[in-house]
């Protein structure tokens, strides 16, 4: 079973990606394009529904789907692609998404976890080679920040405020 980092804990993943073994009752993450094709079909499942967005897709276009999903998985396909950081903030600040925001993909590394959490991500699907316990420590790497963004546990000072 896949282990993920969620709210300062390493836990067993309750979610499946489309294409992985899943029953109708399992929580399932469906890529945006598939969800768009047959929204009614996916929403009729008994399990919880999540959607997955790639860097090139428009985050604003999710507005009508967000009330129907419990999770949004934002893809970080490689080390350098940082578009997902903006998507995290837009989903939280502008689209007011209150469900689970998850970072997925090869680009989710322990060295980015702190910044990702600050952009509103609360769970992290680490590539298999990443050490989850070290990643957990990385979440607490800094106790001071400059910018207003998602408040995370352990921050004692911040410079600028919205």
């Amino acid at each position, binding site marked *: 079973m896949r282990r993920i980092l969620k709210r300062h804990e390493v836990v067993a993943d309750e979610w499946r990606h489309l294409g992985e073994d899943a029953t109708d009752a399992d929580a399932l993450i469906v890529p945006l394009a598939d969800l768009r094709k047959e929204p009614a079909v996916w929403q009729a499942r008994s399990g919880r529904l999540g959607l997955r967005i790639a*860097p090139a897709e428009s985050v604003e276009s999710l507005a009508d789907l967000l009330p129907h999903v419990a999770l949004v998985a934002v893809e970080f396909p490689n*080390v*350098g*692609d*940082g*578009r997902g*950081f*903006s998507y*995290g*903030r837009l989903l939280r*600040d*502008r689209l007011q998404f209150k469900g689970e925001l998850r970072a997925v993909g090869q680009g989710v*590394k322990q*060295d*980015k976890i702190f*910044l990702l959490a*600050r*952009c509103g991500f609360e769970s992290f699907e680490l590539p298999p080679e990443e*050490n989850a316990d070290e990643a957990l420590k990385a979440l607490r*790497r*800094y*106790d*001071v*920040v*400059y*910018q*207003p*963004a*998602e408040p995370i546990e352990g921050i004692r*000072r911040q*410079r*600028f*405020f*919205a």
Partner: protein
Amino acid sequence: MYRYDDLDQAFVDERVAEFRDQTRRFLAGQLSEDEFKAVRLRNGLYIQRHAPMLRIAIPYGLLSSRQLRKLGEVARRYDRSFGHFTTRTNLQLNWPNLADVPDILEQLATVQMHAIQTSGNCIRNVTADHMAGVAKDEVDDPRPYCEIIRQWSTHHPEFTYLPRKFKFAVTGSPEDRAASEVHDIGLHLKRDEQGNLGFQVLVGGGLGRQPIIGQVIREFLPVPDLLSYCEAILRVYNRYGRRDNIHKARIKVLVKSLGIDRFREQVDTEWQASRATAPRLEAAEVDRVRSHFVPPAYEELQNFDAAAGREPEFQAWYRYNTREHKVSGYRAVFVSLKAHGEAPGDMTSDQMEAVADLADRVSFGMIRVTHSQNLLLADVRQIDLYAAWQELKQLHLATPNIGTLTDMIVCPGLDFCSLANAGTINVAKQIQARFDDLDYLYDLGDIEIKMSGCMNACGHHHVGHIGILGVDKHGEEWYQITLGGSVNGFSALGEVIGPSVPQKDVAATIERIVEVYRTQREDGERFVEMVHRVGIKPFKERAYASHSEAA
């Protein structure tokens, strides 16, 4: 100058600890080359031709004597006892050991310095006018705003993995001494009709393969909106800047492809939507930072002609290497890092420590690094100038050539940089040797040579009055020459005069070019003005004439 508070110090200390851990994981094989590259670049560490290169940030070019002394000490202990100052006022160490870098950063943190975000696709060190706070025509001191931008951009949660690097420059005078028009964002302090302080905002300037002069995106941005507006620009760029081609990933390409008007509309839309959640720059915070930049305790002194009755050598130095100061009785003094025979911008540990001592005695213990790769002692009493000159001369730092043809901007080139196509230091030395006659240099007046060893343009060759670009031609080092570039006042990109020339002919070609100017200029006309008046044709005709014809 700005002093770290508990937040700033805790942050750099935590950053050093993080990088120590990352370096350990890399050396233990737990972190791939690719992953380590992303984090080491964001801590200023390149892997270069001979060794790693560490680029240490000197925010807006300002150093205390204690910090300069520390740089000298670090260069001696961990490197080969010298460093190289860059056009963006950073200091590069060329030979540190990878495993020592965490220790170097820890040393730097003890004097409130770091190497954070001096490379990588993130917001880089912010630069300013080297005459900030002492220029007569200044609207306001740009440095507090640079410091605010430094803090806001440090470890920014959203903008640390941008499509490409992102550079800010801030100026407070009408004269643009910071090359702000070739930065991703250039900010010019100004006042509106009611006297409120704000910025003219330029966006999309840059050199490299596609040189572009920045365009005005906003005529007046009030100070409290500075950070929220910059966040809107950065967010549009982070989302829509190209990531498929490294050569098209700078914001200038996005601005150009959309056009400034459409880009402005997108930024405004984003700004209106995000202002409420973006950082607001409170007056109290501006005041807090400004309080660190109060003028030093100037004495009440009269201006006097320090050069009168002195030897011609001092008079030349006074004329070329010192500048007017807004406070009577003081002048700003250049420390020339352009001694003939030396690599431009290089400085030894001994020189750094000696200049730190000199600054303690004659310039309130402060030193500035300039865009033109020199240092500046900004607040020297006129009565101390002669003694300061004697000391600088002893240190080989008083070559009276500031603003002349041998005050060249030069990147490290093929000798150090793994991106370079051609050497620059040898060519600089050739030019220095050919133009070693100071009277000839003075007769030529203000001519800026800017040289880069490749099209990444770290030496800003596009905007040199004379630009020199190193190119690789079947494994040999050749040089393309451009004329008429400029950034100071009216920005212009230089025009290529023709085919590139081999290394051995560069200095002679430059000499033939400036001879055209010397013999055909109008009264009082500067070199770059003549190029703009007559075009490149007469220069081109002469540049490629054989030696005998030219003689």
